[in-house]
């Protein structure tokens, strides 16, 4: 049964990352218990580390892990001295053959989908949804997630424990929601994935502008969702949008780690393969007239990806797409983006008026990009001292170090211009 080649720790690590979510999902179904399934999966992976290195990787590693996990569960339950009314039932479940499903891949698919919906249930706190999804679906260890979100491992561990306890105690179902709940719940799942991506794309704090590892995880989760729900257009839109944004990762920072604006990026450094995949998915996500919010955002990202240089960007079309997006999900941030697109198409004067009307409502007064965008309009109009004021406002609100340095450079530039005037 065993292959002659012994597997290394890094082989197993890759296998763990790729398969942990599926294996856990199967064990949860077999055992009906999140915690127990997780313990059993970890026990089985520990056994694999020891045995596979010595004897080689088994022919069907996934089945091997699941089989070992079931034995470990039975051992664990038998060892527990305290009386538990569920003991016999759990042993029976672990012994049953139900994990050898006749449907094969299809069954695995359904199980992972159920797990996604459980991890992103609206009754779980947002930060815990993210942690739980990365932990169970991407096989990320607690310490890795803590590092990615700049949290202490103990805090992250507690967050995970609390979420898992809630799943069990509150009776959060382990199933794909019924038809009438599906679109709402799917939106919650996509929001979690987008949250992971956004934190990676523009880190809210820290030394680096991006955390490409988080972007990659979000893309992986979205791929799972697209694979699991092939007839839903919005997951495709979400995946397309993320692929297109992420394709620019190498051009977004220079060699010194400084931020490079879209218009100044070296487009030869964009990931063409990823763009092709993103554009194809964006097209699949549906015609823009009937698209949902993610598909609309994918269409906007696609416009940038298609432009051979900054001048060739169809800003008029982008402004229209933002308008469409506003109709789907009105938000002041979308309005701000639309204002910037209009400014690019019709001039900074028009953009400034729109931004000022958004600012006047006070919704975004704590949002650094509002001030950065306003400052940029004033800079383009040569109104140096007003631009300096807005850059200063933005600097007081901005998160990551590279963005702060970028704004400081612009502030110095307009201040210099202003003093030359005077």
């Amino acid at each position, binding site marked *: 049964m065993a292959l002659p080649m012994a597997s290394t720790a890094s082989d197993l690590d890759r296998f763990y990352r790729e398969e942990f979510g599926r294996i856990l999902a199967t064990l949860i179904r077999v055992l009906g218990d999140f915690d127990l399934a997780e313990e059993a999966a970890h026990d089985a992976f520990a056994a694999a580390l020891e045995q596979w290195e010595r004897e080689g990787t088994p022919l069907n590693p996934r089945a091997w892990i699941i089989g070992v996990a079931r034995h470990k569960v039975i051992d664990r339950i038998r060892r527990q001295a305290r009386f*538990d009314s569920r003991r016999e039932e759990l042993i029976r479940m672990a012994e049953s053959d139900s994990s050898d499903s006749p449907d094969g891949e299809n069954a695995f698919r359904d199980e992972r989908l159920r797990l996604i919906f459980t991890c992103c249930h609206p009754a779980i706190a947002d930060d815990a949804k993210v942690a739980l999804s990365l932990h169970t679906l991407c096989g990320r260890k607690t310490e890795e997630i803590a590092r990615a979100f700049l949290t202490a491992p103990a805090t992250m561990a507690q967050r995970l424990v609390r979420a898992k306890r809630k799943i069990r*105690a*509150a009776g959060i179902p382990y199933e794909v929601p019924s038809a009438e709940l599906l679109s709402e719940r799917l939106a919650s799942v996509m929001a979690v994935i987008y949250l992971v991506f956004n934190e990676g794309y523009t880190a809210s704090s820290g030394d680096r502008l991006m955390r490409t590892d988080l972007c990659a995880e979000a893309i992986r989760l979205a791929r799972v969702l697209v694979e699991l729900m092939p007839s839903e257009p919005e997951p495709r839109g979400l995946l397309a949008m993320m692929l297109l944004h992420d394709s620019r990762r190498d051009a977004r920072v220079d060699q010194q780690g400084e931020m490079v604006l879209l218009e100044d990026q070296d487009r030869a450094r964009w990931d063409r393969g990823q763009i092709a995949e993103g554009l194809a998915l964006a097209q699949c996500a549906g015609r823009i007239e009937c698209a949902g919010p993610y598909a609309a955002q994918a269409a906007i990202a696609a416009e940038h990806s298609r432009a051979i240089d900054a001048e060739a960007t169809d800003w008029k079309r982008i402004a229209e797409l933002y308008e469409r997006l506003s109709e789907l999900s009105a938000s002041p941030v979308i309005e701000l983006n639309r204002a910037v697109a209009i400014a690019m198409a019709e001039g900074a004067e028009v953009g400034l008026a729109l931004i000022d009307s958004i600012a006047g409502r006070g919704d975004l007064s704590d949002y650094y990009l509002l001030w950065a965008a306003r400052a940029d309009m004033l800079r383009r109009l040569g109104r140096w001292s007003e631009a300096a004021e807005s850059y200063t406002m933005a600097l007081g609100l901005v998160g990551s170090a590279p963005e702060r340095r970028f704004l400081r450079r612009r502030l110095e530039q307009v201040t210099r211009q202003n003093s030359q005037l005077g």
Partner: protein
Amino acid sequence: MQYMLLIYDSEADSKKRPDAEKKAEYEGYMTFTREIAQAGKLKAGDPLEPSTTATTVRVRNGKTVVTDGPFAETKEQLGGYYMVEAKDLDEAISIAARIPTSKYGSIEVRPVMKINM
């Protein structure tokens, strides 16, 4: 599983509601209670007298300390409860969303702890 559905509403706002609305709300409660009872989901349920009638009891150093009013002053007050049987949290949520007060107040859904005796 059993869930406790705790009904919270602002007593101050509730007083200001016109009589016709109060009547409709009362009828809404009657219909809802009848429906969940017929579906076999209802374990118990009652409205409570207003929080101004509440008394808080603490025993400290063997002495019973009684104070007027609820345990904590909050914007919304506990005004009633249902104890229901539901398959999982999603079913409990869908029952809670049918409680008339959910349209302006809040319903806290709490699983009942199972104790093996």
